[in-house]
């Protein structure tokens, strides 16, 4: 049941993101450049964790299953939003093995928007509501 509801809401979420861009909102930038419909799972080792505004970034060496490791830059929400969904500034460290579900840039390359991250402890964290849910697992 849950999945069908989420699929139904996906269109609403996308439409609303477009509205937010047109509205006097405080969001930093639109997520429309990321391909939400073609999410990928990447696994790798954290090279850098930047806990900064306007977004946090996780750089990893890794990639999709069966592919050679490359550098990926993954964008997360802002520290303020992530604090509220249970993240901590020191939750991720260089050397951590992580698994992430991400929406890559439509224009290609190894940059993407985070949907969900699995930490070395097995704990799964989301990226706040505006980034939208992971659609693959």
């Amino acid at each position, binding site marked *: 049941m*849950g999945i069908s509801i*989420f699929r139904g*809401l*996906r269109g*609403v*979420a996308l*439409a*609303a*993101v*477009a*509205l*937010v*861009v*047109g*509205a*006097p*909102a*405080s*969001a*930093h*930038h*639109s997520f*429309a*450049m*990321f*391909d939400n419909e073609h999410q990928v799972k990447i696994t790798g080792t954290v090279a850098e964790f*930047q806990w*900064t*505004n*306007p*977004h946090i*970034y996780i750089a990893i060496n890794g990639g999709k299953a069966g592919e050679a490791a490359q*550098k990926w*830059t993954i*964008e997360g929400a*802002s*520290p*303020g*939003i992530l*604090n*509220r*969904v249970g993240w901590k500034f020191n939750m991720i460290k260089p050397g951590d093995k992580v698994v992430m579900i991400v929406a890559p*840039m*439509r*224009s290609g*390359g*190894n*940059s*993407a*928007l985070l*949907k969900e991250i699995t930490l070395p402890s097995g704990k799964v964290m*989301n*990226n*706040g*509501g*505006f*980034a*939208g*849910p992971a659609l693959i697992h």
Partner: protein
Amino acid sequence: MIRLALLASSVLALAATASSPASASQADAKKGPTMGPAYFTGTWEDPMPREILRPELGVLPERAGPPPADPPLKPEALAEWKAAARKNAEMLAKGEVPITPNALCQPPGFPGMMGPVFPIEVLQTPNQITITQEAFSQTRRIYLNEKQIAFEDAEPTYYGHSVGHWEGNVLYVNTVGLKDFIRNRNTPHSDQMSIDEKITVAPEKVTIEFTQTDPVYLTRPFSWKVEWAKRHDYKMNEFVCENNKIEVDPATGLQRLSE
């Protein structure tokens, strides 16, 4: 009349302070009698932060709502506004995101800072109300019981020049002097544009009704509304736009995320 009432309430408040300092300080905490008739110092937020907390919900349909009406611009400006809105929608649908001042770390300014999605903090002092917005650490100042300055004296800024006065639990604010590119829903404006706010303060809820007036660009004033819910335990986060990896793609002029 209003001034007299305000003066009378200030005198009463002062008298209360003088007669019983301890109880007056307790009253301050509850009501802030010298700050105005209504006390809304504290942290507020859009009433529906579920979008922030629960990605599986997406942005709630009630938030998205029906699309707002076009601003009542005069015909030539309206045609330009519609063309720009159409182009923007077409680009976003293709995943092409034009560069915006926000994406380059410029703050949205007023009135954008009064809306969602980050929390807002209100600070009341005797002659001023200061409103800060977590996103981009934005700050605006509303000077109480001062006369608004003339349009020609209003230096264009991100937050404008705001004056306000209380009538009961309603704070009336008038703002002039916004930079040309600081726009509500991309509505162009002249240097004679002003935005009025009717800010109704209740214990757990603030309602802000905005009305934008502009004799040069608009056929009539138009209004919109924002609501805040109290967040008792929220402490504002620092927000310095420190590490922005959103950049202009030199090939397309569009936004991209650097690698």
